[in-house]
């Protein structure tokens, strides 16, 4: 007799724990051919708010860690992902309907991207900060610092490589993230949260909500304790242009830093450059007199 498989209940990832949505809602996830795969938690406004609270609590300790330590932890995420490659390949193949080889390529690229970002942790300040030769007897120095809590609308199509490409630059620079995953392709994000939970990433540093960016985005964009927002995931949604505009308008209420929505989903295999990191850092300048 055939073995009955044990199916998984897909949950949210908030503050290092895996709660169901407080609303009790879930939604059906289908594969690329429309076949039922699983039910995923449908995050609510309250889940967004809980995630922001968890993120804010994590921000102080995470941003105070040494850059070396943050780099080690981001590298550790890559290590744990590497270990679970078959599971990610299945999730990507099922979500995106690509061949096994293509799915493998995406997982490899996602792991490699994490490794690339891990190395930036203790170099970004050296590359974009500097000593300033002011006209007077002053020590004057400028260095990047994290902006704070960043709301991330993850790409809708690239369920893993895209997700990693928007989350890694946020956390490696010392920010914390509240992420809304791809709506129709949430499974790699759920697996990614399980990796985060076992990768020495402190609870609350990354919070992942499965759900609808069109519904959750406005709450994130209007939340007064969110400092910045990445609108990448708006590309490809219904009425994307109108949605992006309304999210930018909401973000203006507390002058959130906004990484604008691209016209179409970018090519995630391309080199990211520095802008995903510089979009979410401030530059702090410190002056002190020079004297005996």
């Amino acid at each position, binding site marked *: 007799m055939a073995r009955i498989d044990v199916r998984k209940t897909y949950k949210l990832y908030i503050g290092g724990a895996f709660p169901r949505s407080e609303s009790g809602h879930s939604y059906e996830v289908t594969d690329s051919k429309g076949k039922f795969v699983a039910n995923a938690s449908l995050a609510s406004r309250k889940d967004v708010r809980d995630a922001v609270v968890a993120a804010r609590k994590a921000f102080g300790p995470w941003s105070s860690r040494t850059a070396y330590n943050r780099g080690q932890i981001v590298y550790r995420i890559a290590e744990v992902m590497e270990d679970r490659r078959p599971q990610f390949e299945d999730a990507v193949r099922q979500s995106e309907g690509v061949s096994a080889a293509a799915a493998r390529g995406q997982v490899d690229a996602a792991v490699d991207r994490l490794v690339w970002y891990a190395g930036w942790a203790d170099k970004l300040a050296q590359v974009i900060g500097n000593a300033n030769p002011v006209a007077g007897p002053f020590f004057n120095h400028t260095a990047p610092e994290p902006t704070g809590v960043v709301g991330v609308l993850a790409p809708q199509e690239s369920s893993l490589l895209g997700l990693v490409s928007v989350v890694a630059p946020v956390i490696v620079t010392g920010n914390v993230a509240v992420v809304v995953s791809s709506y129709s392709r949430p499974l790699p994000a759920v697996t990614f949260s399980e990796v985060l939970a076992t990768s020495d990433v402190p609870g609350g540093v990354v919070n992942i909500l499965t759900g609808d960016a069109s519904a959750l985005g406005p709450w994130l964009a209007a939340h007064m304790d969110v400092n910045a927002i990445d609108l990448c995931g708006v590309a490809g949604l219904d009425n994307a242009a109108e949605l992006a505009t309304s999210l930018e308008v909401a973000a203006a209420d507390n002058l959130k830093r906004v990484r604008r929505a691209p016209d179409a989903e970018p090519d995630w295999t391309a080199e990211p450059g520095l802008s995903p990191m*510089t979009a979410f850092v401030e530059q702090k300048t410190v002056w*002190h007199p020079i004297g005996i």
Partner: protein
Amino acid sequence: MAFEYAPAPESRSIVDIRPSYGLFIDGEFVDGRGSSFKTVNPATEETLAEIAEASDADVDLAVRAARRAFRGWSRMSGKERAKYLFRIARIIQERARELAVLESIDNGKPIKESRDVDVPVVAAHFFYYAGWADKLDHAGLGPNPQPLGVAGQVIPWNFPLLMLAWKVAPALACGNTVVLKPAETTPLTALLFAEICQQADLPPGVVNIVTGAGSTGQAVVSHPDVDKVAFTGSTAVGKAIARAIAGTDKLATLELGGKAANIVFDDAPIDQAVEGIVGGIFFNQGHVCCAGSRLLVQESVTDEVLGRLKRRMGTLRVGDPLDKNTDIGAINSREQLERIRELSDIGEAEGAERWAPACELPSSGFWFPPTIFTGVTQAHRIARDEVFGPVLSVLTFRTPAEAIEKANNTPYGLSAGVWTEKGSRILHMASQLRAGVVWANTFNKFDPASPFGGYKESGYGREGGRQGLAAYLKEADA
């Protein structure tokens, strides 16, 4: 006995103020199509000149001129652009005295400050960014970075010429052209700058200056052919701009309000700290977005610090901005004076104790004495709202952790000050304060090589330094 100072007025004769001014568009002064308004000397209420109020159609003309000029200016080699900026910097130095006197007449700030701070730093900005024009490949923004296009720039009345320099110098160095709107109460030095552009033979249309009030600024910011918005001013207007450009391709840098904490520890050099507190809040009549308007004193030295602060405040001379002995000039406008009075009255009504040294204020003009409030708590409006005047709120703390919490307890995050002899504590405080600029054992220092800008609701982007170029450049198209 106290010695009186003899008056030492700077002569106005070096400045020639015309009865009326038009707009500066495409290299020429032209009449506006809209109405006009008057700019007054805030120290005397004397009308200085009639100023054109640019209409939407005028702004459109200016943007078109800037767009036409962009072609040539952006393609000119950086080496050549640099020479124009060096020329402008030199002319500013040549005409420094004229600019300083005009700035003090129109703005009300003491000549001591316009002469020794504003104008020299303005010249320094043009020199600094002139040197970047042919080195943009080394700005850290990738090879061959490109200008954005036409920059619409709106600046405030507190540092009329300095804010112009902060905006115009980096924009031009990067190959952008500009349409700049100075504040309605302080347009005169921007119009003199237009003459300087003519003297420097700057190609027509590279710099355009449109005078007017809020609606002119709105027309500049929302013009569909403006690629980049740069604004310095209130947080409320900054938010309105962020909303207005939502969904467009316009980029923006916003330098907005602040409510800086100036934190004095018990081991601080008290006399130097008192000088820093005075400079932090009374410099430029307190019309400074990064003013140290919240003094946080460690409890054990509060009496000593306040005693010496009050004694020092008693020596500040309030009066004629053109007198070289003047420390505190006129409040820039009647409207601003009303706001300062209103917030101060609220401070008293909410239970804080108000103190100002005895000082005689001139009978005409807009004046407010240097004032401190003690017994202030974090809930008081004078501890939360930006007064933008010579009004200091004094709070106390016991531990560094408490100081950090109180300092960061504001939606703003522009600047902060720390006074202590302990180096490790300075660096710890500097790292914990959520502010774009931290002055340690000094305050209100500015330099073109040093990036300036805020965290949180103090806006986004940086001006000054290499970081200031990022606001006016994009990566080359692949």
